[in-house]
């Protein structure tokens, strides 16, 4: 019962080098995406990792980035203790700075 009231550990944002380091440490188990209540369509962890660092952001990832509300549900299931919410925040910042249109079908 009290576990429900316990908030997830909060961290502030991470810098780009830290995000890159976390992405390199990701083992691609998909646990974070399975635990995400904001993700509505299938996205592979590989695509998400690749587009988080650099390059164009595809339409599904763009929609997911907008939908992510930083609840932190993705942090606790990660077997290697990574912060997917911080990576998503970096993706949000990238989207904010370069609001380019998605490369694939919208």
């Amino acid at each position, binding site marked *: 019962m009290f576990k429900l009231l316990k*908030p997830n550990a909060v961290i502030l944002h991470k810098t780009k080098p830290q995000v890159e380091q976390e992405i390199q440490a990701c083992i691609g188990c998909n646990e974070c995406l*399975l635990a995400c209540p904001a993700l509505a369509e299938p996205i592979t962890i590989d695509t998400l990792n690749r587009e988080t660092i650099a390059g164009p952001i595809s339409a599904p990832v763009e929609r997911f980035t907008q939908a992510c*509300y930083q609840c932190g549900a993705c942090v606790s299931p990660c077997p290697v203790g990574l912060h997917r919410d911080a990576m998503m*925040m970096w993706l*949000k910042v990238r989207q*904010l700075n370069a609001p380019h249109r998605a490369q694939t079908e919208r």
Partner: protein
Amino acid sequence: MNAISKKKYPWLISLLATLGSIILLLTTLWIYTRISADRSPFGVAGLTYAIAGLFLMGLATVAYTRSRRSRKRTVGALNAALHWHISFGIIALFLIFLHSFGNFELVSGTYALFGLVALVISGMIGRTLDRFVPRLIAREVNTALTEQGDDRIESVTRTLQNITTYHKEQIHSFQSQQDIQVVEKDMQMVAAHLVSQDGTALPTSWDLAYISLAETPQEIERDTEHYRFVPDRKSPLAEPSALVPGLQEQMAELQTVQRALQRERFYRAIIRYWRIVHICLALLTIGLTLWHLEYAATIMIPIYFHQ
């Protein structure tokens, strides 16, 4: 409904289901009021609405919680569960309203209804916050990071260090030049006195070597670090850090970043604690509903089983 609208609007099915259910319930209410004059919460329709509402309340709570804790999940399943959680919550509220038939005399039932209203409203506000607050966080994070994605505080601190080092070096070089000038001036004065009345130069006295050109203790004190130039109050030099250009701007940037970090922390706290408020309201509503059920049972059991 095609696949694209499902991708873009994952909430569309649950929204249509909610609206359809509300229309269906209003139709049943209209039909019931045509065929029966019983408007009591404990009548056939009232009890039916109550049971259906209670079932949906339970479904909204249990289904989403189970889905969150389930080990067999697929990508997107939790999102769908969240949308059905919202949908069931709204339909349950509507059913409980219909169950009351506008009768708010029973305290336990009224409190349970108020609890449910507060719960649904808190959920709606929470979803609105979930939509807007992350954008505000992203804006603050953008302020706190440089264009290259590095920590802006670190960058500003490095610039401040560079400014300080540069000005320190400037001051040191200025002091040494001044020292040289003083020494040269002294030398010239000494040389001027070594002239006879008729203008012919006198030979350098042997004891001139004993005249110290080093600064007096007072002069040394003037040049030490605690000696500070105090400009006129009206002078632009009197402004803070006027003698160290760039310092004020960097300090202002540092304060801006610190304020952005504080706001980011505040926005994150809103998201975290609103969820806790919602869970607390859910627990309160469950408690009030159980109290109402117990109270309703004490009224209804004698009516239905002892007559």
